[in-house]
């Protein structure tokens, strides 16, 4: 395999968003070091400015249709990559806004916090573009390094340290699996790029290799049985980091999963579909059932997040163009509802100092706005129409029914009812129970901004989803050419003999 590093200006153009963000991060770091007295809020807004410019750049890519590959297909820019990057950057902006009040709780290195958040985002942007096994490994680790530090950022808090340690050990373990899996796959096929692998014959080594890679990615998305780090890590990590962790790495990992399964493994769809179905059923059922017993809202969202990943996997199990559309769309709806819910959690935590669900009693009396926002977010997560989550679930279910995955659908539907139960418990505490302490809860500007964005996203996507659907459909359009032959190789099980 020859590898040349002759880059032209037009090649670099494809890397522009990443290059710009890298430079901007250096500037942020330099500003932090040079001006000792700089207010950390200003650093936050400086970082956000950089992320927004990067977003604008991506929007320009999307509109002008700039696409291509770099470094011998290692790095790909297509509309799907852009979709995922936009989601990651949106999440980053919202998380930075969430952090502004929280950062005061850190005793040291407040400025570096923003740098680390944005650096993780940068790593995840690369993940969205990863198109071969090497870049898969490098970008995944790049993105995770930032999180290792961020999770244990509350130095004096035992829970945060524990969370950091667990996350680190399991993360490194997953990295080991990934490296081993990659070496097996490369050894069997001699190929690194996903699209070159599609014709490979399945050998034992190849199967084991892919299983290992799937396990490593399973850790990132938190699917059962690779979920064990999630509850403690979510619980112990600083809340904004939990919020970030609950959406961005999952989004990025799904970008890789889509490319891996629908490009490299397209021909083995009947084989891996079973694997995904199993992971999906386990994730939904386990996540929802355990969520019922939770007393801490962060843990509740951790388990509900496991269940939500199970839902997304339904789309992957369908393995069609429609399935991928639905995954993209679902992740988008999940982003708004989840980060909105975390914003409410932070507002309450800042004023009450606790994340126990019992402290949500009578929230409606203390802050009708927060209670209403939380209601909308939880109902969207549960999939109640006409909120965004409903359209997302509907889309995924339609895609799966089309492939005849009836058992999976039945389990998914029963799980919706189960999840409604624990979401309603929170709703009940907020609206029905008397408050223990009736002092009103104050929210600060940045938190309000995140809640407004979350509400707007949840309501607008729910009521008028068409542009977002179109965007998701267009994002996988390029991609459907890649999986096109696969679809004809494995004709979908049609429920109706036409």
């Amino acid at each position, binding site marked *: 395999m020859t590898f040349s590093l002759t880059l032209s200006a037009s090649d670099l153009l494809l890397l522009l968003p990443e290059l710009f963000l890298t430079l901007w991060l250096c500037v942020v770091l330099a500003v932090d070091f040079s001006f000792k007295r700089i207010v950390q809020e200003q650093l936050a807004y400086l970082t956000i400015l950089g992320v927004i410019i990067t977003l604008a750049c991506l929007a320009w890519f999307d509109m002008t249709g700039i696409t291509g590959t770099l470094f011998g297909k290692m790095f790909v820019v297509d509309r799907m990559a852009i979709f995922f990057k936009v989601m990651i950057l949106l999440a980053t902006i919202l998380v930075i806004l969430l952090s502004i009040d929280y950062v005061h709780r850190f005793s040291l290195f407040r400025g570096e916090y923003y740098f680390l958040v944005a650096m993780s985002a940068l790593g995840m942007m690369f993940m969205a573009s990863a198109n071969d096994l090497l870049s898969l490994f490098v970008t995944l680790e790049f993105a995770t390094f930032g999180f290792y530090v961020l999770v244990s950022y509350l130095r004096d808090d035992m829970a945060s340290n524990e969370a950091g340690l667990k996350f680190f050990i399991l993360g490194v373990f997953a990295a080991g699996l990934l490296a081993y899996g990659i070496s097996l796959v490369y050894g069997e096929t001699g190929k690194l790029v996903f699209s070159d692998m599609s014709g490979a014959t399945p050998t034992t080594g190849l199967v084991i290799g892919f299983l290992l890679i799937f396990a490593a990615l399973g850790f990132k998305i938190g699917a059962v049985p690779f979920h064990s780090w999630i509850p403690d890590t979510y619980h112990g990590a600083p809340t904004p980091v939990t919020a970030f962790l609950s959406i961005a790495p999952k989004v990025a990992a799904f970008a890789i999963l889509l490319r891996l399964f629908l490009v490299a493994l397209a021909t083995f769809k009947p084989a891996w579909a079973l694997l995904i179905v199993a992971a999906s059923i386990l994730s939904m059922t386990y996540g929802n059932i355990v969520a019922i017993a939770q007393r801490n809202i962060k843990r509740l969202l951790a388990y509900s997040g496991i269940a939500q990943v199970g839902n997304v996997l339904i789309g992957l199990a369908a393995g069609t163009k429609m399935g991928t559309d639905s995954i993209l769309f679902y992740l988008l709806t999940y982003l708004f509802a989840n980060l909105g819910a975390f914003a409410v959690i932070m507002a309450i935590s800042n004023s009450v100092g606790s994340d126990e669900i019992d402290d949500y009693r009578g929230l409606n009396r203390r802050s009708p706005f927060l209670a209403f926002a939380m209601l909308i977010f939880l*109902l969207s997560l549960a999939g*109640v*129409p*006409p909120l965004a989550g*409903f*359209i997302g679930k*509907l*889309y995924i*279910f*339609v895609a799966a*029914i*089309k492939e005849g995955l009836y058992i999976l*659908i*039945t389990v998914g*539907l*029963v799980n*919706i*009812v189960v999840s*409604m*139960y624990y979401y*309603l418990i929170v709703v*009940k505490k907020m*609206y*029905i129970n008397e408050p223990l302490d009736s002092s009103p809860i104050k929210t600060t500007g940045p938190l309000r901004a995140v809640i407004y964005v979350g509400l707007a996203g949840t309501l607008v996507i729910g009521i*008028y*989803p*068409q542009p977002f*659907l*179109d965007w998701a*459909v267009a994002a996988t359009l390029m991609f459907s050419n890649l999986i096109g032959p696969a679809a004809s190789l494995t004709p979908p099980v*049609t*429920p*109706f*003999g*036409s």
Partner: protein
Amino acid sequence: MLEEFSFGFPILSYLIFLPLVGAAVLWLIDDEDLLKSTTLGITLVELALACLVLVRFVPDSAAMQFAEHARWMPALGIGYHLAVDGISVLFVGLTAFLTVLVVIYSWDTIRNQVRLYFMALLALETTTIGIFVSIDLILFFVFWELMLIPSYFLIKLWGGGADRHYAALKYVLYTLLGSVFMLVGIALLDINYHQWAVTHHMDHVYSFDLLELLSVPIPLSQQILIFWLMFMGFAFKAPVFPFHTWLPDALVEGPIGMAVMLAGMKLGTYGFLRFTFPLVPDASKSEGVVAIVMVLALTAILYGAVVALVQSDFKRLLAFSSISHLGFVVVGLFALNFQGLQGSLLTMINLGFSTAGLFFMAGFLSTRQQSSQLSSFGGFAKQAPLLATFLLLIGMASIGLPGTNGFVGEFLILLGAFKAKWWFGAVAVLGVIFGAAYFLWYYERAMLGPLSKQVSAAVKDLHMREITIALSLSIMILWIGLYPSPFLRMMNGSIQALVDRLDRAKVASVDTVTHVPAK
């Protein structure tokens, strides 16, 4: 059936969204009296709009009238499609009518969180009207699910019983369980349409529009599957025996206003007429399906009536009589002939007046004795003659005495049932006898005889607002009872079209493959 009329302005959208806008307006009002009168004003305007629809509705027509059509999510084939026909138009009027009465009833019976209560009530009206006028199945589903949220709060926050938290949660989870199955059925219809479209005009289109789905044939085996999936949704909501256990809890524990809306709006059975029968006619009339559903419905009639007989709490009695009445409605539906369907539809409307009316009565009783338990009453007619008179009249309608609306509906259902199979009718008649027994027995013990010690002399008869409610219900009961033809004429066209479709299905089911699409 596929014809459509439009009206000059989007009156159905106004009907849906007026209460919702009204609920938002209530947010701005602080004064309690102004709050109540605003709500009353909104619901009266809504009623006027509904009456306009009823007056301008062309009777004896199967057409979809007042249609509004807009694209919503073309990628998924979801449209904003509203219309009414003979099946749904009366429900729109009924919803608007009952909401006004509930507002009047709640005037002085709701004392805490008044603003939130009326907001929830208006939201409930929006979703209920939405359910009745939606032609797009997803739009319908959206309102169907959305209805749970105001209902949940209404039962939970203003319910009287100690178990209202349990009842509210049970109601939501049960209905949700049913409706997720229904959603699968809806998705199957969509995919069937898609595949048919792909093979016929080589076009990747999806549709959840009832009228478009009707134009596509569905193989019998798929129809059966879709039937049972949709059946789950509608049976849980109706509720059809044995999915009824949430109903007594929700009706008894919830506030009267919620009980009126829940017992008065036969959403589940409406679903059968609106969606199940036209969409899957072959399955609806296949022998196995009819047999199973009939057995369930007949069981419900007898079970509900017998259990009602031994209740000492009036609200609980009404809940079980509701289950029994729903059994009647289902028997009429699955008789699958003109009389049966027409009788069922009319009975659904009738129950909106009589059962809902009896719940108002239960409310009047409870406000006087703080309970609807039999032990608190006895000889009550002496103390409150007006109340006793209205209770008797509305009760007679519920029994189905000639001259009241209940008679017309029940008679048609029995006629249809006998025509379908004699023993359907024979068993159903038993229900009528039991129905008379449980109501009259209760009435005798509670109202007649010597004045009980429990009843204090200070108990007053009905006051103006209560008389307004009772009187307007009585007028409707007697109107339909004595001169039903305007109401029957409104439904005739659509019912006839539905019967034709079902009959055509019989011919086609011999050779399903060549089933001729309606369009």
